[in-house]
């Protein structure tokens, strides 16, 4: 008890509080008398912000070890320190409430806790704020749930739960084509996660029954127990099949080419806060789930399918970057750049080097800070200039110096400029990639030039270049309105993201150290034993790898 007892519920509290508060705040206006309800809007957003900040504070304290203590490498070894009383939720099928955190999930938890208040801040004056901010709170709870739960059933529940607030955000606060985008977003990702569900169910039926678990057959969804069970699925063919099912679910979320097309539509139509969370945290759910479930439980299949991972990663990275170049819509371009960057995560995992995996983890984190900044900037363009067409305006830097400054910083961070967070991840992944696959690294490396090209071109054609230093070319969508700079709350939000980008670029060890030790443990405990499966690679693949080295 004592410290243990206190720590035991922190993660649960972090997850449950926002969901319940969010639901209560949503219902309040219906319950309250009418004259009170009309003034409730401002109170709602203050309460929401307060809760979100509180959770950020808790998460930060967890990081410093002020409350509770997290063993950064524990979960995959079958034990974790930040544990709770596991209790059964649906005992008949063996669903438990079981949570934990390690270096894989904690940066994501902290990131979620950080991005929610910032996205609230950026959309501080959103229309229908009494619905908007509570929805973000529900979103926070669902996202945190995905990252903390160690029960696959609950994982799936939270996974799908995140769709609902996002769906509503796009549907209610989205752009002109929001209905189509919301539908597409929902159905697309839902369909993909059904594959994942099938995979999870197959795994479920292969678990060794635990007598006391409560379910009639003794099967369970306990991730830790599944990890501990050697050879969960004995048949190799079925194992690979399950791995592929899981990959479909996760790769769609990440998203990886060729199942990425929901992302640009969803992003373009989503409100700024929605885009920020979508790119910042929701995409990382895919990578997180892939590492946590697919790689951890089926390392042999992962090793066998490394060529596939490289192919998917390369396709996302290179193809995504090229498609970016062909975009004329600012937000679409940024969305495709997310596809491109997510490709690097697959490449990092495919190296099977502690360095590469740590790089992939850092990429998840760094992209989680940088891409919200990009979307905040794109959203500000939409908000203040009413258009996202690249080239419909010129010389905006004169009218909106702050917006242009943030744009410059975000764009530079995203194209991998040193001393910013993205560079650390890129370099780590690419070094590991060179060590494993030799000259193949030229492909991602040369893509960096493409990345720089589309970012610089988009900047040149929006904030720079005008015939007159004092005027610039304003977009038609402004209808002669006077152009404004961003508001104080947008500015503050972007400032925080920008400072964090630089902070983690200069001092990456703040999060890197735990990620690095986690990766080492992960490789030595989980992956090393599976490495001999590289023999199963197709002979032409083997030949290629030899030649490139």
């Amino acid at each position, binding site marked *: 008890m004592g410290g243990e007892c206190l720590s035991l519920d922190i993660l649960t509290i972090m997850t449950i509080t926002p969901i319940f508060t969010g639901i209560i705040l949503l219902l309040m206006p219906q319950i309250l008398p009418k004259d009170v309800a009309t003034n409730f809007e401002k109170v709602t957003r203050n309460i929401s912000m307060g809760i979100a900040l509180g959770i950020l504070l808790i998460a930060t304290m967890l990081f410093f070890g002020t409350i509770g203590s997290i063993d950064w490498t524990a979960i995959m070894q079958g034990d974790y320190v930040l544990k709770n009383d596991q209790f059964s939720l649906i005992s*008949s*099928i063996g669903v438990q409430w079981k949570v934990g955190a390690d270096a894989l999930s904690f940066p994501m938890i902290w990131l979620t806790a950080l991005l929610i208040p910032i996205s609230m801040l950026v959309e501080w004056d959103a229309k229908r704020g009494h619905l908007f901010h509570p929805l973000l709170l529900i979103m926070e709870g669902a996202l945190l749930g995905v990252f903390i739960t160690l029960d696959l059933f609950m994982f799936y*529940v939270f996974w799908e739960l995140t769709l609902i607030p996002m*769906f509503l955000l796009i*549907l209610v606060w989205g752009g002109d084509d929001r209905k189509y985008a919301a*539908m597409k977003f*929902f*159905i697309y990702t839902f369909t993909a996660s059904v594959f994942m569900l099938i995979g999870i*169910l197959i795994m479920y039926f292969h678990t060794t029954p635990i007598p006391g678990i409560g*379910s*009639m*057959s003794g*099967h369970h969804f306990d991730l830790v127990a599944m990890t501990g069970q050697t050879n969960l699925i004995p048949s190799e063919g079925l194992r690979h099949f399950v791995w592929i099912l899981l990959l479909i679910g996760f790769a769609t979320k990440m998203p990886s*080419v*060729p199942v990425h*097309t929901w992302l640009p539509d969803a992003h373009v139509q989503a409100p700024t806060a929605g885009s920020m969370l979508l790119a910042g945290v929701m995409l990382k759910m895919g990578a997180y789930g892939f590492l946590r479930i697919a790689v951890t439980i089926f390392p042999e299949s992962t090793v066998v399918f490394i060529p596939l991972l490289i192919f998917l990663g390369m396709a996302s990275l290179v*193809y995504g970057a*090229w*498609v*970016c*170049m*062909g975009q004329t819509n600012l937000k679409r371009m940024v969305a495709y750049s997310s596809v491109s960057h997510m490709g690097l995560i697959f490449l990092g995992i495919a190296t099977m*080097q*502690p*360095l590469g995996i740590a790089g992939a983890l850092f990429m998840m984190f760094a992209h989680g800070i940088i891409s919200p900044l990009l979307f905040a900037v794109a959203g500000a363009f939409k908000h203040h200039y009413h258009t996202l067409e690249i080239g419909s305006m010129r010389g905006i*830097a*004169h009218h909106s*110096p702050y917006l242009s400054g943030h744009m410059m910083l975000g764009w*530079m961070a995203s194209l991998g*400029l*040193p001393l910013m967070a993205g*560079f650390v991840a890129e370099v780590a992944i*690419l*070094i590991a990639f*060179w*060590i494993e696959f030799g000259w193949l*690294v030229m492909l991602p*490396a040369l893509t*960096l*030039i493409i990345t*720089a090209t*589309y970012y*610089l071109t988009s900047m*040149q054609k929006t904030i*720079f*270049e*005008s*015939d007159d*230093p004092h005027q*610039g070319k304003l977009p038609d969508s402004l209808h002669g309105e006077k152009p404004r700079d961003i508001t104080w709350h947008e500015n503050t939000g972007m400032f925080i993201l920008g400072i964090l980008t630089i902070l983690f670029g200069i001092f*990456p*060890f703040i999060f*890197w*150290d735990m990620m*690095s030790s986690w*990766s*080492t443990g992960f*490789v030595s405990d989980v992956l*090393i034993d599976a490495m*001999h499966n590289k023999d199963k690679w197709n002979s032409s693949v083997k030949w290629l790898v030899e030649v490139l080295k």
Partner: protein
Amino acid sequence: MGQNKHEYPLLYPLIPLLLLVPLMKFIFGMDSFEAAFLIVVVPLLTFPTILIVGQIFNKNDTWKEKYKEGGIIAIGSLGISLSVTLWILIDYLSGTLHFSNLTVIEWFQWISFDFLQSDYTINPERRIIGVGIWIDSISLMILFVATFLCFLICWFSMGYMNTDPINEDRNHRFYAEFVLFSMGMFGMVLADSFLWLFIFWEIMGLCSYLLIGFYYWKVSAAYAAKKAFLTTRIGDVFLMVGLFILYDIYGSLSFEVIFEDPSTGVAGALVDSNQLFWALLLLFVGAVGKSAQFPLHVWLPDAMEGPTPVSALIHAATMVNAGLYLVARMVPFFDVHHHGLAGLENLAIIIAFIGGITAFMAASIAFVQNDIKKVLAYSTMSQLAYIFTGLGVALWFYNTDHHHAAAIAFGASMFHLFNHAMAKGMLFMASGSVIHEVHHAHDHLHDAGDGHDFDPQDMRNMGGLASKMPITATAMMFGSMSIIGVPLIGGFWSKEGIIAETWKAALEEEPLMFFPAILILATAGMTGFYMSRMWLMTFAGEPKSDVVNHVHESTPWIREPLLILTAITALGGFILALFGAIDFLSNNTDHLKMHGILETLEHAFLPEDLNTRLIGWITIVLSFIIGPILASRVHGGSLKDGEKAIQPIGFLVTLSGKFGTQDVEELSKSQLSEALQNRLYFDNMYEYVISKTIIPFASMLAWFDRTIIDGIIKQIESKSVLGSLQVRRVTTGSARDYILMAAVGMLSIFVLIWGVNA
């Protein structure tokens, strides 16, 4: 100059700040090396300070008058960097600090990680990428050049930038970016590993982007900025891959580990020279991009779109030297005398070839430029190519175990870097002074912006300025003489060495070296022509436009930096040559020894080796006599009657009129001239390739993504819809129904599972 006197007291508060540095020694007992981090950290912190404070007090009068919109803060922080550098330099020269070539201070661990070996075991030793400082004689020299010139250029900027109304309320951005740029260079030179060298290298790339595009509303400036960033980025990406290979070989990127024994890699295995060749070649590609060598040279002339102090900064003090520094850092790999690796000669020859080609190409393009800054830009390119050639030769000698010749070639190259940086920094400032005053005179004559098309940088609008701008003309004369290599002045001492060593390599050892040797010898003569041409077109002859008659040298803050650099250019080369700079820079001797004046002169003009003597005199004749005389025949001429210029400029101007005149109208219409004016069509070619391949390909892929990949998804959707009318009826488009569906779906799964279990 009344205004001038009025403004300098602004600098007085800086003096105690600069005195702080030596005080640290006594108060904190700090060593000069321990203070070295200040060189980087102070400017780094100044950057946000100026930016934020400047944004807040943008229109404030005190900010403009007292702080020069941030200029005073910038010069203060650069002053601290300079004084710490001087402190280290003094300690180094006086021998207080005994560090045989190297000193490392580890700051903090940047990242650390474990390593999976190829036999699938984790390497027990944790690998660390740290951050630290490394100083040796090369880095110290370049650091001094950078801090000193950045300081002077910042000083100059306060005259150049703050008196131009177009920059008003924007200067804080200029100074902030200026300081960040300087920080990038200082950091790169001090970095103790190739990784951090690369990091600061990229920071410089960013700053060049920001500063070249300072006038962001100008289409040409925005384009030039993008071009500079992307062209150097191409080189950087190759450099990055080179670093990966180096890392793979040595298991570390820190100089300390690699230079200890470059022939044995990680786990003590002998390094494969083929692999190392590729690593170093890729590193060199990065250097080619940054130092604007063929074929990645296209960004440099366009970079003139930035304000003139930026040109001085990029071309003299910082960015272009970065590539040279990187190549100079490769010596330990080549030096077979100390643990180097044999079998890298081919790379050395490639470096010398690239140098030779660029030198010749840039010099020939400079022949036909009429923009004063463009001439200087091409001359930068050409002079840097000299240094590359010299380094290539030095590396070749190192790799073939001619240690003495290698040391001379290397020292001469580094010395040329110093001489060129000083002269070029001054030339750019002087050209800035000319442009500034011509521009002011023009604005004085015609109201600013009356639509009259006038280019203050075009030398065809100048002429006869020698009597109007005596200081600038003198400065520019010494700068040009240094670049030409006039005996006894600046660049002579180093250029001679490079050419002689290249010929030595060609004649005695490697016939392939004849190619760069002949090219750089020809370039020496060409340099004499185009630099004289520039000076004569600007200062000699009769005025070519009425604007010239109204030019005065009156802007404050500009004179002093020019005078300081003139003195250094005129005398510095000789003095340093006396002190044996070449030996010092090549680490040939540990202590300075003073040579006798006669001995030094004899060494330069009458070396014992007959070949060297012959080459030396051919160079002198070509560059000092034939080139300038030809230029005088075309562009020379006395001033207008009644105008008098101070000596010795007056003498030079008069002399230039004595060689007769030659009409080059015919020649300037030839196809060759046309090609040169179009920069040999490199820009057009690159642009054509990009617009015909990359952009259409990207658009095609965007179409493909939208139509094919997304189309397939849509097809699946619509087909399944057709297949099931039941489902069609359910998709009502209302959110509530979908949530309901999700809930029902989830519930049915529960039931299903329950059923299976039961």
